[in-house]
Each structure stands twice: as structure tokens, then as C-alpha cells.
């Protein structure tokens, strides 16, 4: 156990987490140069394309230190996005140390701080790593000052590296060996292991990623998950060297995996404790939470024939994504679909993209909604996440919406614009402090719904990309909620309804109408598009009727061309949703969700 070091890498987005991981894999010989590719630990296409990590993963790095001792360094790669902050926190629990990577040209950012506090909470040994020292704009001394001032860490312990150029990587390994304490634990005690993620394998079922704190586990053992009391027989234990590498057993202090005939990842829960069925540990590890989705949207297949396929696809994604929830939903306008719950907008986008790419589905999404708490006059309370379920306003006594606490770090020159943005979004300022002469940290309480709606893009654009942002959930607070309906040709399109703050109702309704007008092709008749609260129309646009759709020249040589054009037109029509007697293209539904910047 003395030669084991368990660590993770945490960083603000784009500060070089994956590049450092790649270098560690190369220098320790886990991957040869010929099999190397960027972002080794991100195996999903979508992770690689977007440069993000969604799933946690571990890998053993064998390293012979300068002291001649052979070490086993377990690197646990964690997601980097706030959507997955619970997953990150569990991965941190599995470690004794963390490399906190800071971009030498950007310095400490909001997620640097958020990750730092999270690591601190888990009592991890934190090693600051100043990356990208090869950049002309790198200012190592300034970053060291920030490390001292913002993080309260010893700047002398910081390792200055360039992961891209491979400079300083060995120093990082030495720092891990010397600064991160070896794991503690009792190999003879009953098994106590933490699930920090799980993956689904089509041949073996769920692969559970574990960190053992006490005891040991080997094939043949009957194990028990303490959250749901389910028991399984272990088929295989092992560690990851990128690929799975079976080992006869896993012992206290180690990081590895077990396979135990578990059908879906939903049967295992990140943060749960694994113990032996016949010799259980006294108590479970602390901090377990059942992650709950916070953002909801309904997914409908464009072609109603694809409904079954969508159901199958969601089931398949769910095998590997326990935090995705879905249930049947029905819309008068769009037919059968699913109400899906996500950890955040990134999670939603990832699922949408995978459904469209891996399962070749064309989807219509409804506007993402948060969960509202609705209190009735008779004292009853319900939670709703779907505008379609919004009760008769006459019966409603109050509504509450979820708030988050956001930490924003911005260069001073954008401070005014950032504060204005937050206030526009109904934010309440809680704190403002100068990190140094030019950078300010702001803390705002903001309604989650406002943050979902293009907040991050706006923040980036008003600060020319310099402001950084992180958030955590706070509580539900009383709000003035209304339901805005959209009517196309006087028919209410339920899939376009949204729950918004009363102050926002007019602008959101107007915006939806304008965008729909742009996207819905002209029809044979005049089509009014209206936004309404109850029976009251609050916004209106009109699509004038189509007057011309004609092929002027049609002689011998034009017939083939014309038929092709007509076929194309017909195909296009097939991809539209018929709502009443209006054909609405998929793009119209998506346009309503788009942010200003995307236009």
C-alpha cells in the first residue's frame, strides 16, 4: 500500500487536463507512441470532438521513482463540467491527492477555485501545476502569486510544465510520489469500497469502477451494494491499463474494477458503498447522493414511426448513463415522445447528439425546463417540470423555482457588464471581492432557469471570453411564474409552451413568434403565430401566404431537373411536423431554443 498513490487532475476548462493525462500515460509507458492519440482517456466520440470528459475513468501508471522505488500511481480522470459535479466529487473521494492544473497565461479561474474547494473539502493533498509555460503570454510568477493569494497554497510547491511540449512531466510524477500520501486502510477489515463510476460493456454488463478503502475483493465473492441492498457474485476483478487487466484480487488502497453480472449501470450508483454480503462493513461511506436531473425536455421523433426506435435508443443510452431519466410523454402537436431529465444543458446536448448520430434519429426537442414547486391554495404542493402539466392558475397559491449560487471571476474592465447581465437575469449579488488589482470574484444567486437560457454564452461574449463561471445548487425560492403558450394558426402547439417568470413573458413570447415566423415556410393560407398567457394574446406575427412556387421553364431538358426539384421538395415536407394544417419544420422547434449569438 505504501507504493500506491491515488490522484486526480482537476482544472478549469481548457487549462490542459487531458494533455497532461496524455503525457503521463506516455512517459510511464502505458501507451506506446504508435498507439497514442490525443485525449487517450476520452473514449466516446463526442468527448473527443468536443474536448470534454463525461465519464470518469482510471488508469494505473507504473513509475519507478528517482528513489528507485516502483510505484503504482492510479490516475482517476474526472469530468470537467459543472453538470457532472457530483461525479467529480465522488472521484475526488477516491483519491488522496489532486493535481490542480492552471494555465500559465490565464491564471486562476472560476472552475479552478470551485475544483480547489472541492478537493479541499475531501482533504486532498493539492499540487498546483502551472501548465503552458511555453506560451508567449505565460506569466509563471503572476500565477504563483495567485496560487498564494487565491488558493492559500505554497507557490514553491507548484510544478511549472508544458504538457504540450512534454516539459516538466517527470517533476509532476516526483511531486505525486513525494507529496501525495499513500492510501490508509485495513486490508483485513470487511470490504469497504466506493463506486466512483460505472460503464456498460455489451459483453460483460456493467463494469464498476471502485476505490477500496478496507478489505479486499476477488472473483467468487458475494458483494452487496449498500444503497439498494442488491447482491451480486463477482466474476472478475482487475485494473485498467487503458484496457481492462484482470487481477486475482483488489486490496485496500487500490483502484480498479469489478464485473459481477450487473445488467445496467442504473443498478449501480456512483457514490454507493460496496461490501461483502456475508461480512459487511459497519457503515457506508459518507456523501452518497442519488443524483437527480435538474433540466427537463421532451424528445419527439420527427417521424412518428421512429417512436419505438427512440425508446430503444434511450434504453441503450441509459445502460451507460444512470443519471439520464425518461418517461413516456404525449403531445397533441407532436404525438408520442419522452420526457427526459438531465444533469444540465451539456448533458442534454450530449444525449441529443448521441441519439441523432449513433441512432440516426431526427428529433424535436421542447424548451428545457427546470423543476418548479407549485403550491395550491388548499395547501397541497407538487413538483412540475413540464409546462403541459401546469395547473389552472386560479388554483395556484405560489410557485417556487430553483436557484443556484454562481461564482464568476472576471477581469475588472468587464465588471459592469457582468453585473448588469446577472441583474437582468434576476440575480441577487451576494459578494464581490478583488482577487488582485485586475480580477474580481462575484457571487450571485441566480434562478437556474435564467442560467440555462444562454447565460454562459452571453457572459463569454460580454467579457470577450475572459469571465469564468461555476455554480452550485442552492434552494427553491418563491417566484412569479406564468405559462406562455404559442398558437400557430390559432391552434395551441403544446410542445412550444414554456414556463417563464412573468417579467420575461412578453419578450420570450415575442422572440418565439419572431423565430417561428422566420423558420416556418409560407403556406397556402395566412398563418398567424401568437404568444398567449391563458386567453390573452401578448405577441403576434403573421406569415403571409405563399404566392409563388412555380417552375417557369419546362421543356424537354427541364423535365428531369424539375422532377428532381419536386422530389426534393416532397422529401423536405416529410421532415416537417404537420400541426393542424400547417407544416412546421424541425428547424422551427430548434430555433425557438437557440440563443441570440447562434443566429
Amino acid at each position, binding site marked *: 500500500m505504501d507504493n500506491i498513490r491515488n490522484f486526480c487532475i482537476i482544472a478549469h476548462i481548457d487549462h490542459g487536463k487531458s494533455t497532461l493525462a496524455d503525457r503521463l500515460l506516455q512517459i510511464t509507458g502505458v501507451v506506446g507512441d504508435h498507439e497514442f492519440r490525443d485525449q487517450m482517456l476520452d473514449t466516446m466520440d463526442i468527448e473527443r470532438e468536443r474536448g470534454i470528459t463525461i465519464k470518469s475513468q482510471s488508469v494505473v501508471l507504473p513509475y519507478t521513482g528517482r528513489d528507485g522505488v516502483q510505484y503504482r500511481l492510479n490516475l482517476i480522470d474526472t469530468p470537467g463540467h459543472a453538470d457532472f459535479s457530483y461525479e467529480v466529487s465522488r472521484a475526488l473521494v477516491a483519491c488522496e491527492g489532486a493535481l490542480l492544473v492552471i494555465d500559465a497565461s490565464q491564471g486562476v479561474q472560476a472552475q479552478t477555485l470551485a475544483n480547489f474547494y472541492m478537493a479541499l473539502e475531501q482533504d486532498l493533498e493539492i499540487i498546483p501545476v502551472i501548465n503552458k509555460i511555453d506560451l508567449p503570454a505565460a506569466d509563471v510568477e503572476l500565477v504563483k502569486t495567485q496560487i498564494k493569494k487565491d488558493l492559500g497554497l505554497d507557490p514553491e510547491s507548484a510544478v511549472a510544465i508544458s504538457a504540450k511540449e512534454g516539459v516538466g512531466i517527470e517533476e509532476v510524477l516526483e511531486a505525486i510520489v513525494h507529496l501525495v500520501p499513500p492510501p490508509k486502510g485495513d486490508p483485513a477489515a470487511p470490504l469497504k469500497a466506493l463506486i466512483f463510476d460505472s460503464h456498460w460493456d455489451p459483453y460483460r454488463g456493467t463494469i464498476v469502477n471502485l476505490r477500496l478503502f478496507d478489505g479486499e475483493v476477488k472473483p467468487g465473492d458475494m458483494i452487496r451494494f449498500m444503497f439498494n441492498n442488491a447482491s451480486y457474485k463477482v466474476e472478475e476483478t482487475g485494473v485498467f491499463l487503458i484496457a481492462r487487466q484482470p487481477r486475482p484480487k483488489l486490496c485496500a488502497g487500490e483502484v480498479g474494477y469489478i464485473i459481477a453480472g450487473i445488467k445496467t449501470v442504473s443498478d449501480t450508483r456512483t457514490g454507493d458503498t460496496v461490501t461483502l454480503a456475508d461480512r459487511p462493513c459497519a457503515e457506508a461511506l459518507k456523501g452518497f447522493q442519488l443524483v437527480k436531473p435538474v433540466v427537463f425536455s421532451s424528445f419527439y421523433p420527427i417521424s412518428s414511426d421512429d417512436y419505438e426506435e427512440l425508446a430503444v435508443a434511450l434504453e441503450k443510452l441509459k445502460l451507460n448513463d444512470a443519471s439520464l431519466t425518461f418517461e413516456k410523454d404525449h403531445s397533441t402537436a407532436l404525438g408520442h415522445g419522452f420526457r427526459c431529465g438531465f444533469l444540465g444543458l451539456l448533458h442534454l446536448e450530449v444525449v441529443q447528439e448521441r441519439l441523432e448520430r449513433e441512432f440516426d434519429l431526427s428529433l424535436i426537442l421542447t424548451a428545457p425546463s427546470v423543476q418548479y414547486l407549485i403550491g395550491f391554495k388548499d395547501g397541497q404542493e407538487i413538483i412540475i417540470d413540464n409546462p403541459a402539466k401546469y395547473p389552472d392558475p386560479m388554483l395556484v397559491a405560489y410557485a417556487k423555482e430553483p436557484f443556484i449560487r454562481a461564482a464568476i471571476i472576471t477581469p475588472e474592465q468587464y465588471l459592469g457588464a457582468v453585473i448588469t447581465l446577472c441583474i437582468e437575469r434576476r440575480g441577487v449579488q451576494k459578494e464581490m471581492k478583488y482577487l488582485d488589482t485586475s480580477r474580481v470574484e462575484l457571487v450571485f444567486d441566480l434562478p437556474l432557469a435564467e442560467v440555462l437560457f444562454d447565460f454562459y454564452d452571453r457572459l463569454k461574449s460580454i467579457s470577450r471570453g475572459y469571465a469564468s463561471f461555476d455554480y452550485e445548487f442552492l434552494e427553491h425560492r418563491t417566484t412569479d411564474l406564468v405559462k406562455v403558450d404559442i398558437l400557430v394558426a390559432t391552434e395551441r402547439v403544446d410542445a412550444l409552451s414554456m414556463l417563464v417568470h412573468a417579467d420575461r413573458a412578453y419578450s420570450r413570447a415575442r422572440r418565439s413568434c419572431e423565430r417561428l415566423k422566420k423558420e416556418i415556410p409560407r403556406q*397556402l393560407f395566412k398563418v398567424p403565430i401568437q404568444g398567449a398567457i391563458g386567453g390573452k394574446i401578448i405577441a403576434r406575427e403573421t406569415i403571409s401566404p405563399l*404566392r409563388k412556387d412555380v417552375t*417557369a421553364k419546362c421543356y424537354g*431538358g427541364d423535365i428531369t431537373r424539375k422532377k428532381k426539384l*419536386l*422530389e426534393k*421538395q*416532397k422529401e423536405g415536407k416529410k421532415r416537417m411536423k404537420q400541426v393542424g394544417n400547417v407544416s412546421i419544420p424541425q428547424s422551427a422547434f430548434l430555433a425557438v431554443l437557440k440563443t441570440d449569438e447562434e443566429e
Partner: protein
Amino acid sequence: MRDFSPVFPREEASLGIYVHVPFCRTRCHYCAFSTSPYDVSAVERYITAVKREIELWSREPSLQELLSDFGADTLYFGGGTPSLLEPRQIQELLEACQQVFPFARNPEITLEINPATADASKVRGMRDAGLNRASLGIQSFDDTELAAMGRPHTVEDALRTFDDLRRAGFDDISLDLIGGFPGQTRESARRSLRAAIDLGPEHVSVYLLEVKEGSRLDAMIRSGQILAPDEDLAADIYLDVCSSLAEAGYAQYEISNFAPEGHRSKHNLKYWRDRPYLGLGPAAHGMTGRARYANAADVAAYERNVNEDRLPAGTFMDFTPDIRFREALIMGLRLVEGLDLVKLGERYRVDARAFVLETIGDLESAGLFVLSRDHLALTARGRLLSNIVFTRWV
């Protein structure tokens, strides 16, 4: 859907012959057609190749069968710019056709003319070669608009050519105009139309602009150099055109064509009336009754084929009776007179009315067409929105 299974009709009309002349000196901005730069030796090679193609067709038994009963009665030189050819070259092609295809008496022989390419003596030569109908591509009577279209001539050029045609004895002249070009106004379109009517041609074609993918115009619109044409304005211009021409005695007989009875284009009517026609030359299309074909568009590929004794049809689409029946509907409805559903039904041995009701019945309330017991025709509104109807049949 009910089972409609038409059968192939018997052909019962004379053949039309189209000769495609692919050369252009410059390319107009709205054009995406395959054309070749003009040069003297390329034209000579082209003439030889087309004569070869005519000979190859003469050996086709299927064509002989088509020709034996009714012969051919129209010949149309289109392009490209056929007026770039010398009269003797046109004559050579004409004679080659006459040797192989039995022509009816007084066939309609049309030449498309670009005003910048023919002077008085050339026009006379064309008349002497045996051409009896001219289609003059004026497009607009506004020099600014002509320049915007990339046309290589001025209004003055066009007026002179028209005058030359009349002097040479052409008593069947058609004028082409374009409606809805970016920059055109309702007023300028009216002025062009008035000028066209004042010349007193026998026939007028007005084509609402289509922005074709691959044309210079398309690129200019995409890059924001010019505004996309206003569809509503185009619709207004079109309705103006229809009423002004009707007043002046040019009855509309097809979506884009206007002429008094007796001056309609016999050749073009074949396309709309489901009649077979032969297409000669690169990129020419033909319809044999059982198939539609397109010759190789590339001049070199076309020449290679005929020089190796092969008909140069690059693509062939065999009809099924059903496909031909649907095309007959689509093409026939372009005519203002509409379709006699009883005759069409007899021709294809189907219940044409039931088919129409089943496929477009729901559009009746939109006022796009008028359906009586035995007759179907588009309304004026329906002609402007004809693609809505036609998409139901592809």
C-alpha cells in the same frame, strides 16, 4: 391507396426534333446550363458529330417504327446560342435531318437567336437555309437590367435584330422576357412588356426567374452581393404580365407562354402534350414513349461516343406506364386548357379522375384547380403555385 396501373398508350403523333447547340460566347448570370466556349474548330467538330448522331438514329428500329406512321413535323435549334452558328452550318444540320427523318409538309423550324450574335446578312442566311420561326432572347428592355443579368447585348441590339428578322421575312417571331430578376420593379417589368408588345411579335414567353444552384447569380446572392429576388414582387409581375398580354391579344396557353391561336409553339406543345421527341447534340434530352434519355453533356464525351458508333445517351430512364402517366399529368396541367381526364384515362386505361381526387383532392378548397366531371385545369393562382400540386405526383 387504390390500385392505379396504367398501360402504355399508343403513340399517335408526329415526332419533334430538338438540336442542342452548346456554344456560348459568355455565360449569363442566371444560367447553370452546360455550355462550351465558342471556337471555330470546336463548332466544326460539333457539326460532324451531330450528323453522325443523326445517322446512328437512322439505324434504330424503334425510331423507325415511331417515324413510319406520322413522320416529324417540328425542328428546334436551341442552346446555348445556336445563332453563333453560320447559316451554312445550320443548313447542313437541317439537311442531314431531312435526309433521315420524313418531315411532314410545312414543318415548324425554329432557331433561338441571341441579339448580339446575328447581323442582317446572317439573319437573311438563316431564313434562306429554311428556318421559318425565330425565338429572340431579349429578356428585358432595360439596359441596366440586361447588364445585371450578364447578357452580352443592349436593347438597341435587340431592336435591330428584330427589325432584321422582319426584313428577312420571318413572320413567326417569339420574344423571351425574364420576370422577377433582382433589381427589376413592377414598373420596369411593365415597361419591358409594353415595349415587347409594341414590336408586335407573334409569340411571347415570360419566364419568372429561378435562381439555379451553380449559377453566378446564386453565388452573388449567397455572398450578399445582391439581394435575393422578392417572390411576392415576382408574383405581382407575373399577374401583370398575364393580364397585359391577354389585353394585347396574346392569350396565355402555358404557364410561361402567350400567343394568339395559330402562333403557339408546335414544338414546345409536344413536351406538354406527352408526345415523343428526339434530342440531338450534347446534353439534349429525348423521349421515345418508353424511355427518357439525356445525351452526354460534355461535348468531348458526346463526340467520343458518336465517333465510336454509339448513341451518346448518357442517362436513360425507362418509363413505367405509371411514371409516364404521372408525367403526362404534370406536363399537361401546365397548359391553360388543362387536361381532358376522359381522354387521358382512355389513353392510359385508368380512372384518371379518381386518381386526381385521391392525390390532390384536399387542395381543391385552396383554389388551385378546377375539376369538373371530365376536365382538370389549374387556376391562375394554381399556375403560380403549380409545384404544390405537382409534388403530389412525383
